[in-house]
């Protein structure tokens, strides 16, 4: 098959997938007896129509940037890290331990320490599947999925039996001490004179996420390790010929990937909940796969697709709040977007290719 021009691959294909997903979604809304245009406008205005909406959209997007980057880094080495969910959960544990048991003088130092801890916990959780893949050939897709379950069980145990305050009924840690509370986006923007709704969960972690995008870009395309990682991802026999150590690349790449997924916890655990609850990741680890696919494993693409999925989450929540459209339908819409932009990417690409390349041939 002929190759699509780069711009078409990067912009047109995801856009067409998105439009298809929305058309289908609107048909489903219609089928349940609701007005699709009203639903669409409610979703858009709910997610992007106010700074309040943006506060939520950006909060979700922050989560997805981290997990999207995590999947992307592994993807460049041809490793499919499906364990973002578990790695982010373990990151949460890392954040909780640092926040609960060390008295921090200021949130900025706490943020730094919590980031290191979250990254470390995530990286360690990714290390075991990576090591098993590199040394024993256990398939990383299987092991990372399994490690999601183990992470969930581990957190269950730790929260119920170790970290739960005496007498509390729900499996969660105590509230983190005040010095660890991160400034929200509203507070920061209001501080510099930009009006922004208070009381939304978007917080300073968004800046950390943007930094992570820059870090990943430099790592993949500007460092020697990134060069080796990409070479390994494209051809393992060639990597061995060049003297690149496959074990080293696999393990380090997965640990970086796990660390990025783990970093998500400073957003949802430290920035939003301010305590560690059970199931805090809420599927963001899996959304990261779709985000990375749609963003073509490039930080800028991931930034945009994370924003899209953030808006979808927030818009969907609004839809469930203000209309009688069943909550399940919102999940269906989100699933359709993932299906069309992620899984059916190749189908959409061949459609686009047909439209774009055919006329050219006729001219020649």
């Amino acid at each position: 098959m002929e190759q699509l021009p780069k711009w078409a691959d990067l912009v047109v294909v995801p856009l067409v997938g998105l439009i298809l997903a929305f058309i289908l979604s609107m048909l489903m809304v219609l089928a349940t007896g609701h007005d699709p245009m009203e639903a669409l406008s409610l979703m858009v205005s709910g997610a992007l129509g106010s700074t309040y909406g943006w506060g939520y959209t950006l909060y979700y997007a922050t989560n997805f940037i981290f997990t999207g980057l995590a999947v992307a880094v592994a993807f460049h080495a041809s490793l499919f890290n499906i364990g973002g969910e578990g790695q982010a959960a373990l990151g949460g544990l890392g954040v909780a331990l640092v926040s609960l048991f060390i008295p921090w003088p200021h949130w900025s130092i706490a943020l730094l320490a919590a980031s290191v801890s979250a990254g470390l916990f995530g990286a360690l959780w990714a290390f075991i599947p990576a090591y098993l893949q590199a040394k024993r050939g256990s398939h990383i897709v299987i092991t990372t999925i399994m490690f999601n379950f183990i992470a969930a069980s581990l957190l269950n145990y730790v929260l119920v039996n170790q970290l739960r305050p005496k007498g509390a009924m729900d499996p969660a840690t105590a509230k983190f001490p005040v010095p660890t509370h991160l400034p929200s986006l509203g507070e920061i923007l209001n501080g510099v004179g930009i009006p922004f709704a208070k009381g939304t969960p978007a917080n300073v972690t968004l800046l950390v996420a943007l930094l992570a995008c820059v870090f990943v870009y430099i790592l993949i395309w500007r460092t020697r390790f990134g060069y080796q990682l990409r070479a390994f991802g494209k051809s393992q026999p060639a990597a061995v010929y060049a003297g690149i150590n496959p074990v080293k690349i696999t393990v380090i790449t997965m640990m970086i990937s796990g660390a990025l997924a783990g970093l998500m916890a400073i957003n949802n655990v430290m920035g939003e909940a301010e305590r560690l609850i059970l199931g805090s990741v809420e599927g963001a680890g899996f959304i990261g796969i779709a985000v990375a696919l749609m963003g073509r494993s490039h930080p800028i693409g991931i930034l945009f697709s994370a924003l899209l999925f953030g808006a979808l989450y927030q818009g969907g929540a609004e839809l469930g709040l203000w209309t009688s459209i069943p909550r399940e339908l919102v999940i269906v819409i989100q699933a359709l977007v993932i299906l069309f932009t992620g899984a059916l990417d190749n189908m959409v690409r061949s459609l686009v290719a047909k439209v774009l390349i055919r006329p050219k041939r006729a001219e020649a």
Partner: protein
Amino acid sequence: MTTAPAIELTGISKAFGPVQANKDISIRVMPGTIHGIIGENGAGKSTLMSILYGFYKADKGDIFIAGEKTAIPDSQAAIAAGIGMVFQHFKLVENFTVLENVILGAEDGALLAPSLRKARKELTALAAEYELNVDPDALIQDIGVGMQQRVEILKALYRQADILILDEPTGVLTPAEADQLFRILQRLKEEGKTIILITHKLREIMEATDTVSVMRRGEMTATVKTSETSPQELAELMVGRKVLLRVDKTPAQPGEKVLEVENLKVVDSKGVERIKGISFEVRAGEILGIAGVAGNGQSELLEVLGGIRRGTGTIRVNGQEIDLTGKLSDARSRRKGGIAHVPEDRQREGLIMDFKAWENIAFGYDDDDAYQTGLLMNNTAIREDAEGKIERFDVRPANCDLEAKSFSGGNQQKIVLAREIERDPDLLLVGQPTRGVDIGAIEFIHQQIVALRDKGKAILLVSVELEEILSLSDRVAVIFDGQLMGERLPADTDEKELGLMMAGMTGEET
């Protein structure tokens, strides 16, 4: 003669976007002949045959089969018109038997048993008629490539093909298997079949064909009787200028021992001993050629020396023993020790096909100090370095920003050679330097290897092309079943003697 041509193409043109793959091509193939089509990679041979087999539709032009104008919109129509195709890469189901593969797509009904019975009978008849002996119950994965190719031919004959098209059929065959194939083709011809042989190897054309058509840049430049032409003339027609078919070189002036191999043994991952204790040496300023049928341990030899595979024994480079099993047995340590390696399979190992040409210039040498700025890689420096190397090695198009996969085979090989040779290694390992490379580039590649030798470097050459071994090497060693059968000077030996040694007869017996 009044007989209509088996195939006649008139004015065939085909363009892919701006690229004119076939320009106004006309050709007549007479029945009961072997017609060769020769041309460099990208000359348009495969496109032309794909049109004939219904994969592409020609923009212009007509196809006549046995005098009748025939439209071939798809491969079913081609089969119906009596055309059979044997592809370069076989289209066989590995875990099916020969018989099952033969009937695949030509089953008579919903139940397999009757088709299989019929096919078995017919296969026996075909085998007798054309001397195409294959065990119908063998699994494809258990038989050699030569046999697999016979199955492809049988598949075409089973579908009553009168015209057989073979696309680069000897690319994967050993010399002996290729000879067998040509005997089969000869036999098919005697039985009245028409054969079109597509290749870029001059020797095969001279050996096997009655008539030959030459293609260059999408055009048919000449059609001549094979008996009335010479390899030299064909090469010129293909390339469009005079070509040196023999390598021009002065006698070697061997110096110090650079590579000493003593009792090297290699066991593969399945526990099979692939190299069974071989010893040899290569001196500075000489080329040692390792001749042998593919799969007799020469690949493993290159891999051990190149740091891709582990082995036991003693290997010294410049008098220093090198690590064969431990931490320093990887490819990077080898490069640091002055060994450069042009691997046998450049697309699988030598290049990252999705990387740009300049990125590939740093491949394996990405730890070079000149390529770093602090923690980051100095892409500007790599690119500058790459531009120089690509220019000096005449890579075309001379564009560093193209991905490796968009270069032709010859130019890909030049990128690998530029990277490895310009490192000024003490020892160069070269595997199949001209496999899948067009004639024009072969000449250049051979010159570069000889030039490196003349600079006083040691070169170990592995090739399955005997001609290449004989013309490039200063000494020839023959490998068979993981053992060296003996050593000869190219001047004192010939293809016949080496061929016998490659089949396992030691020098003394011949």
